């Protein structure tokens, strides 16, 4: 009906990547319930259209046509950069805004091919730059092992990291390799890192692999530090790796834990689902807030109007007070490096 | 003198420690029916397997006379399908039909080695392919007619009575237009009445000049069909001769027959 707003939520809700897709669904459900309870946006209730893409390009395009047919007006998601890329042209053709909490491939915004695409996460290159600067300039490491999980996200990050290290010139990449996600044992690669004499491991990928690697590093008595990305800056990382996570670094949106909105978001999840939120939950939460605000300000769901609102309006979100640049990346998602200390991520100033 | 169509010398086959064939010399002449008999485990089937390329013999020579080329061709090192191409076709002791194919199709497979069309032919269905396909069907049908299986033509091979399956194996082998037909216990599992029918069938085939080498335990069949009998035991030749000679050969009686058999 004309008096509801339809929001698509897409991502992997089954299969191996479900744990990255389902938190977004939770974020959308919580927020939409709140918004609808408060009378909706401009008097219109939001209706969720939740669709599983399994992070598969073919399914993602089919889902996109489905959402277009079903009359979705804006979409949260695209968890993986790949399937998001595949689906974006279809959304673009229908004039639908898409905002991803987790697709970090730089090309998504920088190529200019997808003007309807926005995201609440920093692209690979920005994070890689931050981590490299931290490792070389701040910590003074000379030998860095760059490791990734062979995935879209992790390898993208790692390649940028390698490039920036080489550009910086003050340190060398002593190892550049991918590990196989889901493998039962990482001791061989850890021994190889040890052999390479690296002082730090820079890892691109998600927390399951990261926790396996840090655990194995400690178990094999490898004394290098560990620096990683936003996919690792997740409470699950600390939970899973436990004491072995102690001292590890990961970059992530600035200042979230002291941000009251962030706390509220996490609380809401615990209340609703009885568990800690999973990966990219806060990014998804922020994306929903930003889109809701844009719709409210623009007073319509017309793509141009929404874009304008997103680019001009600042919104308070768990990841900071943000607006978006003309390419679609969030401004104001300050990134900083965190360290695991006593079982929590502590922001390093 | 005419060349033997199958000329085997010094054939030896070892399985691990077991010598299943020991220095066998055997010739089959054109138009002849030769029987290969011997106790169980003597190596008869193994001889067939070596000759048809299913096993590679340890030692020995196997030659087949190629009429077109007018000389002997060695079969050593050839794959089973190449051996068939050279004109040896066989049946199996344990029936090995294509059970999910119809009777006619089973025989058509036998024509495979005498035809050529491949992918291109299948796709284009050009004149030649169509003609070839028609020829296959015609020939196969004729063979079934000869063997007397036409009424089962479109039946699945596995649904046939046992005796008919044995005959179908013979039909399939005949379809390859063999120089020499090798039959491994064609009468096994048949009742006496069926065996009698089988004998006359084989006689009919032989009457057309088909050379046959057959393994059989049914002495009646062997004695009434074969012109020459080759007896082996423990992989060795123990006797060779006409049915009359073999019947009275003491070595054969001791190792195999148990008593003198009458025809």
């Amino acid at each position, binding site marked *: 009906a004309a008096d509801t707003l339809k929001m698509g939520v897409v991502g992997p809700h089954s299969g191996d990547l479900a744990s990255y897709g389902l938190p977004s669904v939770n974020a959308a459900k919580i927020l939409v319930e709140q918004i609808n309870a408060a009378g909706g946006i401009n008097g219109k209730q939001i209706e969720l259209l939740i669709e599983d893409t399994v992070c598969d390009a073919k399914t993602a395009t089919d889902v996109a046509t489905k959402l277009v047919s079903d009359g979705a007006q804006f979409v949260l998601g695209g968890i993986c950069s790949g399937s998001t890329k595949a689906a974006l042209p279809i959304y673009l053709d229908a004039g639908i805004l898409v905002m991803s909490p987790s697709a970090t491939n730089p090309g998504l915004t920088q190529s200019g091919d997808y003007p309807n695409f926005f995201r609440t996460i920093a692209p690979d290159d920005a994070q890689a730059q931050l981590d490299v600067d931290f490792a070389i300039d701040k910590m003074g490491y000379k030998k860095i092992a760059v490791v990734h999980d062979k995935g879209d996200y992790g390898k993208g990050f790692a390649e940028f990291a390698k490039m920036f290290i080489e550009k910086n010139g003050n340190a060398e990449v002593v190892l550049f390799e991918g590990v196989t996600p889901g493998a039962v044992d990482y001791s061989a690669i850890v021994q190889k890192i040890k052999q390479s004499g690296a002082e730090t491991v820079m890892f691109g990928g998600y927390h399951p692999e990261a926790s396996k690697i840090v655990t194995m590093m400690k178990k094999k008595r490898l004394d290098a530090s560990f620096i990683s990305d936003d996919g690792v800056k997740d409470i699950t990382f600390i939970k899973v790796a436990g004491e072995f996570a102690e001292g590890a670094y990961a970059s992530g949106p600035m200042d979230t834990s002291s941000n009251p909105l962030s706390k509220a978001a996490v609380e809401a999840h615990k209340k609703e689902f009885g568990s800690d939120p999973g990966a990219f939950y806060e990014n998804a939460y922020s994306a929903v807030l930003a889109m809701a605000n844009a719709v409210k300000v623009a007073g319509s769901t017309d793509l141009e109007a929404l874009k304008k609102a997103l680019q001009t309006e600042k919104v308070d979100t768990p990841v900071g007070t943000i607006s978006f640049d003309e390419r679609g990346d969030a401004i104001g998602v300050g990134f900083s490096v965190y360290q695991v200390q006593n079982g929590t991520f502590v922001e390093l100033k | 003198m005419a060349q033997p169509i199958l000329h085997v010398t010094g054939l030896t086959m070892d*399985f691990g420690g*077991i010598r299943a064939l020991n220095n066998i010399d055997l010739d089959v002449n054109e138009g002849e029916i030769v029987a290969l008999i*011997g*106790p*169980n*485990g*003597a*190596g008869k*089937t193994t001889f067939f397997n070596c000759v048809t390329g299913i096993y590679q013999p340890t030692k020995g020579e196997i030659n087949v006379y190629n009429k077109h080329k007018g000389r002997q061709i060695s079969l050593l090192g050839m794959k089973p399908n190449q051996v068939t191409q050279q004109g040896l076709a066989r049946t199996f*002791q*344990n029936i090995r039909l294509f059970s999910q194919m119809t009777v006619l199709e089973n025989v058509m497979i036998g024509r495979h080695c005498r035809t050529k069309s491949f992918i291109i032919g299948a796709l284009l269905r050009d004149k030649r392919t169509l003609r070839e396909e028609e020829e296959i069907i015609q020939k196969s049908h004729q063979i079934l007619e000869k063997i007397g299986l036409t009424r089962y033509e479109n039946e699945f091979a596995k649904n046939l*009575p*046992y*005796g*008919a399956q044995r005959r179908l194996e013979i039909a399939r082998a005949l379809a390859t237009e063999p120089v020499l037909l090798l039959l491994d*216990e064609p009468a*096994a*599992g*048949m*009742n*006496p*009445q*069926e*065996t*009698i029918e089988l004998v006359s069938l084989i006689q009919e085939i032989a009457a057309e000049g088909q050379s046959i080498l057959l393994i059989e*335990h049914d*002495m009646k069949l062997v004695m009434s069909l074969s012109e020459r009998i080759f007896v082996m035991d423990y992989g060795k030749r123990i006797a060779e001769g006409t049915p009359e000679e073999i019947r009275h050969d003491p070595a054969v009686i001791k*190792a*195999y*027959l*148990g008593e003198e*058999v009458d025809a």
Partner: protein
Amino acid sequence: MLKLEKVQSGYGNILAVKGISLEVNDGEIITLIGANGAGKSTTLLTISGIVPCRSGRILLKGEEIQSLESDAIVKKGVVQVPEGRHIFPQLSVQENLDMGAFMRTDPRKVKDDLDYVYSLFPILKERRHQDGGTLSGGEQQMLAMSRALMARPQLLLLDEPSMGLAPLIIKQIFEIIQKINQESNTTIFLVEQNANLALQVANRGYVLENGKITISGSAKSLLENQDIRKAYLGL
């Protein structure tokens, strides 16, 4: 000993055994003859519980066994040498024989029986450690027979034991059949293509045609029956 009452069984929509009734008395050798596909093997498989009995009753010593699992039937002493031998191809000859004694609990006697069957078929002893699958056809038949003997059957079902055997061995096998029948009082139910031979050792016989029993009587009377002589004996 064994009694079949109007037994029906078959495969899918094929009814191969169409209500047959027959009786095997204790200590008897009886034979079932018939053309190919008449349903002889199916009858034996139904008795052993491999092919389910669709209707009718099968009584062993007065006890209904048609709904028992096949292993329970074997435990009751009904042992079969199936058509086509069914040697375990990757077990050695020795192990194949051990499997025959699978449900026996008297290891010492099993040992004796093993020696006994080896004395019946010395070639098997020679091939003791060879895989069953590589034996020649006839050797496999001997092994199948021996394996059944290892179970010390009370009722032995034999499906075409002479198939593919050398004349000498056939003679031997039939001697053994008579021997175990007399010495260990094993009842024998013999299915044979070689009706001549079968009727010579049997006490009684049945003729199966198209899933139904058409003629029955003493072996002698069957041997003399003109129809049978013509259809099954090839005379």
